[in-house]
């Protein structure tokens, strides 16, 4: 794998994206902002008048902003790493064209993951700007949530793209979205604190990569601070997912594209 080769793959993705960005504006920007409006403002109004208390006495908009930020990074990375990878390996076979050049299968894979990170960075920046305008980002530390969101995206993009590289059809993809991504979206501390889950279920949330991402983003946007050792733990968990995914992906892409 060479950095310049990976960048060429990223360049290719960026060139394709120039024609397709309109569609992604909706799913990666508008939809999360709509969620923020409905949950943060609409439902938040009920919650702030309501019975429960959020940790640190946060208002609900401030609480849910980092949750949606991390969750959006996950969802974008997941959907971009399943069907488009299938298109590259099987349906349109663009990846086969790429490895017929000096690019290696690992270059193609890593390029995909890097591109997922780039897109997450763009989407997260736009989302944070809107959330800040609505008053959901009280701290200037909020900018640190950007790298956290990018890390979250790669933690999902790498293993899912690696998996997609092993599949011959897309039948399993909706199941992954519904039984994997959707429950993570709903129960990783996105909409309510994990502490509210029944005691036996809480450890399950801790192994959710999204939970690590939400915790990092929330510490940043709320400026509530986080012990360096805890932050390092979250970063390590996400980094491990991304690294393991890359190791696996270079193998699955190698098998699929160069044999």
């Amino acid at each position: 794998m060479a950095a310049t080769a990976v960048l060429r793959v990223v360049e290719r993705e960026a060139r394709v994206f120039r024609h397709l960005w309109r569609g992604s504006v909706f799913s990666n920007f508008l939809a999360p902002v709509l969620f923020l409006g409905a949950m943060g403002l609409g439902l938040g109004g009920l919650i702030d008048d309501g019975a429960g208390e959020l940790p640190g006495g946060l208002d609900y908009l401030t609480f849910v902003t980092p949750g949606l930020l991390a969750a959006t990074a996950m969802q974008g990375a997941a959907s971009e790493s399943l069907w488009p990878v299938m298109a590259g390996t099987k349906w349109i076979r663009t990846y086969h064209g790429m490895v017929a050049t000096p690019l290696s299968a690992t270059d193609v894979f890593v390029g995909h993951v890097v591109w997922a990170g780039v897109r997450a960075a763009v989407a997260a920046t736009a989302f944070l700007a809107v959330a800040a305008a609505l008053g959901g980002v009280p701290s200037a530390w909020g900018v640190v949530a950007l790298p956290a969101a990018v890390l979250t995206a790669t933690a999902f993009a790498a293993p899912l793209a690696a998996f997609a590289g092993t599949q011959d059809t897309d039948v399993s993809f909706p199941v992954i979205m519904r039984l994997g991504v959707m429950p993570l979206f709903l129960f990783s501390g996105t909409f309510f604190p994990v502490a509210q889950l029944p005691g036996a279920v809480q450890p399950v949330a801790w192994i959710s990569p999204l939970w690590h991402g939400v915790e990092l983003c929330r510490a940043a946007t709320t400026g509530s601070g986080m012990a360096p050792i805890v932050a390092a733990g979250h970063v390590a968990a996400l980094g491990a997912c991304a690294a393991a995914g890359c190791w696996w992906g270079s193998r699955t892409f190698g098998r699929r594209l160069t044999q």
Partner: protein
Amino acid sequence: MTAPAGSSVEVPRHRGQALPGVDRRRALRIVERNALAYRRAWVVFLTGFAEPVLYLLSIGIGVGALVGEVVVGDRTTPYEVFVAPGLLAAAAMNGAVFDTTFNFFVKFKYARTYDAVLATPLRVGDVAAGEVIWALGRGAAYAGAFLVAMLAFGLVGSAWAVLALPAAVLIGYAFAGLGLAATTWMRSFVDFDYVMLAIIPMFLFSATFFPLDRYPGVLAGLVAVTPLYQGVALVRALVTGDAGPGLLVHVAYLVALGTAGLWVAVRRLRLLLQP
């Protein structure tokens, strides 16, 4: 290999038509075809049950603990009781829209499934009706399971809730008609962003997650005329036992929308599939 003329092939009849151009038995053959296709994808079918229940657990129970009680009109209800009917209605919408846009588009445009179907005695009306019946049957199964889950969580306050099942099917009908009609204008998968552009705001803002009175007056009026709000209001009234003749307005709205959509869809599909 050949037999005398038309040996065992059924003779098409013009009697017993539900809609003009639709033969009920022939429409059911499309349902049969979809069931056959789903035999291989039963996991996908089963996971459809999970989604609304997961939302109920997360937003209803999880976020509900933060909200406590909601005041709607002159009564106070726990948040999970408030949100569950909204989720039921939204699930009915989502299922019908997915089946009649995305799934229909693949068969219509890419797999060209209907080109083969229309070489047989089936007609365009039979195809459209069959796909809608399939979407409604699937939606009814999911809605039924969700109602059972609501019952298990103690979120059903009235025997009227039994009618929430047909109400969910009715919501499915309205959106299936709409979805089928919209699909006839689609050129590629890129156009599905427009579908989502219509569906997600409705899902989020049709008094699904918070009551209509949180909106300023004009906006509340706007929300009230969306099809999903009509469905949510209908299901919520039934589940909470707030039933009355006023609900027939919602019913009429949804029936009219679905029928208009189906009418447009059949007309457009005839032009597209049988030029």
